[in-house]
């Protein structure tokens, strides 16, 4: 308990926001942390969303995706990072070790978002999709106007899970020299400065909570009207809907809408 108070005290020491014994202040570390998370999230979305939509729309490739996702989840993050740092050369203009870090984070971030994307699409009532096709929507229009809006809650659920995972995992990049909020943890451990270590942990947790909270708001916001009122009660009682909801990590749409 004392340590937690000391951690907060460390955070609320104004000087620590701009500089610490190691030079990096909280603001700097926070910025680096967010940039690294943001870039990783960007590439995760770039890869996971199209693949997830493809699987969800066509129903093809689901088995392979699950296997690969499980493999990615099982990867030892730190081990992989150390190996990649050895094999991926630095590129001019990009900070050293940046690319290996991002590669690892993206690999780690993909499974949850991928699952959210295809589970979101799969949760949409087949008859609704069939009807959309029968009135003359193209496959692209079905995806855009029917599957994405109706699956949005689960898709954002996947985004939420992935973002949380990235925010917390980016912490470990400090172990290999990358500045992030994790720097305070590793520095604190290295110098037996436990208040600083605790401060780092608190900052990471707080950031994760804030991002999760924001996305929770977004998640409510994306549930289309008409679906949130009664109509989706019926939809969620189908075995398909329940299974799809369970497949995603993150909070399923049934929570108090």
């Amino acid at each position, binding site marked *: 308990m004392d340590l937690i108070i000391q951690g907060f005290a460390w955070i609320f020491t104004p000087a620590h926001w701009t500089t610490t014994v190691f030079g990096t202040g909280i603001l700097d570390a926070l910025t680096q942390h967010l940039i690294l998370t943001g870039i990783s999230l960007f590439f995760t979305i770039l890869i996971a969303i199209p693949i997830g939509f493809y699987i969800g729309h066509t129903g093809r490739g689901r088995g392979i995706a699950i296997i690969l996702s499980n493999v990615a989840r099982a990867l030892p993050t730190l081990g992989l990072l150390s190996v990649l740092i050895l094999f991926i050369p630095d590129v001019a203009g990009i900070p050293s070790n940046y690319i290996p870090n991002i590669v690892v984070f993206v690999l780690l971030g993909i499974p949850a978002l991928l699952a959210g994307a295809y589970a979101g699409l799969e949760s949409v009532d087949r*008859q*609704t999709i069939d009807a959309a096709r029968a009135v003359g929507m193209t496959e692209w229009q079905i995806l855009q106007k029917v599957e994405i809006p109706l699956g949005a809650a689960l898709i954002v659920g996947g985004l939420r899970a992935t973002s949380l995972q990235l925010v917390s995992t980016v912490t470990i990049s400090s172990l290999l020299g990358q500045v992030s909020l994790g720097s305070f943890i590793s520095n604190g451990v290295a110098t037996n400065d436990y208040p600083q270590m605790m401060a780092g942990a608190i900052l990471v947790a707080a950031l994760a909570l804030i991002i999760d909270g924001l996305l929770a708001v977004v998640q409510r916001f994306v549930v289309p*009207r008409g679906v949130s009122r009664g109509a*989706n009660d019926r939809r969620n009682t189908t075995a398909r809907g329940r299974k799809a909801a369970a497949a995603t990590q993150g909070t399923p749409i049934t929570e108090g809408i």
Partner: protein
Amino acid sequence: MIEFKSVSKLYPDGTRAVDDFSVIIPSRKTTVFVGSSGCGKTTLLRMINRMVDPTSGTIEIDSRDIAQTEPVRLRRSIGYVMQNSGLLPHRKVIDNVATVLLLTKVPKAEAYERALTLLDTVGLDRVLANRYPGELSGGQQQRVGVARGLAADPNILLMDEPFGAVDPIVRTELQAETMRLQRELDKTIVFVTHDIDEAFLLGDQVIILEKGARIAQKGTPEEILARPASDFVASFIGAERGKRRLTVSSGVQANGDDLVLVDAGGYAAGVIAAPDGKLATGNASPKSRSVSNKTSQAGDA
């Protein structure tokens, strides 16, 4: 005119849903496919808008092979109404009705104006335009489904058991509305049902199907009732059980000159006018049936 020319459909799992089916569906009339569950009705219907492609054979609309028409374009030109309405739950009634118009790039204002008019056409109050489908009754949803099917002013309207999920009273209303629409709008309606009474009520041409969409009998309701082509047809239309062979009840006296009719089982089936003790005769053409229904469709869901 829609023409099936030796059409077969073999699903990938080996089910022969349609086996060498040939038929001509005349324009501006209602043709009903009727048969028990799994006999291939839906498959037949969905081949007309290429939701299902035949394994062999061709389907022509106005003598043009539909395989040559791009499915999306074909579907936009054919109305489709299904059992569960199939409305988009996240779109307001008005947007659902306007879907096809907006897809075909009709200006928004015009599309909405037409959609509102269509609500009138199918007997829905315009105030429902801004509701979501989940806020409507089943019968109202079906009407919206019909309005959506009519939006692009298609010549052909496909209806797959559209009234299967509503209660009998609403169903009777919707059936009457369908007949009114057919009279007023002069569409070619292809209607699927497993209810023989509904088939006889709505169909100018009724096609009774057996498994594999084999035609057991084809004709007007009167022809089929008068001369069932086989035992299968007879039992399907209920003639065999005597349900449709009615006799005047000797026991019960009705009001005035009416006589009570009973079926072979002795159950009351209706009354018939018999002025001066003589049975009245009617004109058994579809026209007369539609007209008599015109007066009795005041109800609204």
